[in-house]
């Protein structure tokens, strides 16, 4: 399996991580419609190319990571700690 360069632990076999896929933004539960909510639940870009997705280093640092990965070549061009990404997004 490919290597995932964990920002904390260094490159590790992808088998150490749990894949959680592309994540969409969570709609406001107070105002959301069934259609909007189910697009959030079920629909993904499923891109053949670069995607941004979530992985969890369950056998290592136990950090949730935001990974930019190519779905055909499995190249990984960026991995960041999810907290860092979430804090930036909150700004």
């Amino acid at each position, binding site marked *: 399996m490919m290597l995932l360069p964990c920002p*904390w*632990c260094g490159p*590790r*076999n992808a*088998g*150490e991580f749990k894949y959680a896929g592309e994540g969409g933004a969570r709609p406001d539960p107070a105002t959301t419609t069934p259609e909007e909510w189910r697009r959030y639940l079920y629909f993904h870009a499923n891109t053949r190319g670069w995607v941004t997705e979530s992985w969890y280093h*369950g*056998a*290592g*640092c*136990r*950090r949730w990571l935001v990974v930019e990965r190519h779905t055909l070549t499995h190249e990984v061009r960026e991995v960041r*700690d999810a907290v860092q990404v979430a804090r930036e997004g909150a700004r």
Partner: protein
Amino acid sequence: MSDTAAPLARSPIAPSPATVLDGWEVSARAATGASTLSDETPLAKVLVRAPFDGAGREALGVGFGRTLRTDLGSGAVLLVGSAPGEWLALGAPGTAPALRTALEERLAGTGELTSVLDLTHGRALVRLQGPAATAVLAGVCAIDLADTVTPDGTALRTSVAAVVTDVVRDDVAGVRSYLLHCERSSGQYLWDALLDAGSRSAVEVTGFRGLGSGGTAR
């Protein structure tokens, strides 16, 4: 309330033959060979959680990925940077309450959310030591064990024989030695897997070694 027998603490790894040391049932075996596996579960194990890059880290004096031999007032301690924002403090059997207090004092005043948990009972701890240690561990662990990559004093977490394990390189007097620390209920399995992996390298079981004084200062 009726009288009860004095509590006997037991490791998840069944000792054979058994003896009692510091209130713990331990193995009475003494290996004669150079490469050994020992059950170190009786060591006090205290977990610290704090921000990975804050005042807590400064107060503890060691970051993720490395170890530190120190004394916080409760006796000799091996402080392990086991994950970002997570530390594992190992001390002599029975010292967990004191170690916990010492750590709490050390972290008081950081103004950060810190948690200190006694996990002595929640984890299994074994030591794999000797010339065959590297080869045996390489049979069940994908980490590069070369000195250049994981020198003495390295702490990391990875999968060992399919169990999530803290791997701590803690050489003893220049002899290659690893502490392996996992969730308690997997302890017997991990022990058996290591013995099996060592069955072609003459790894022998030996009794509780304790923390010792460690190797050279680092």
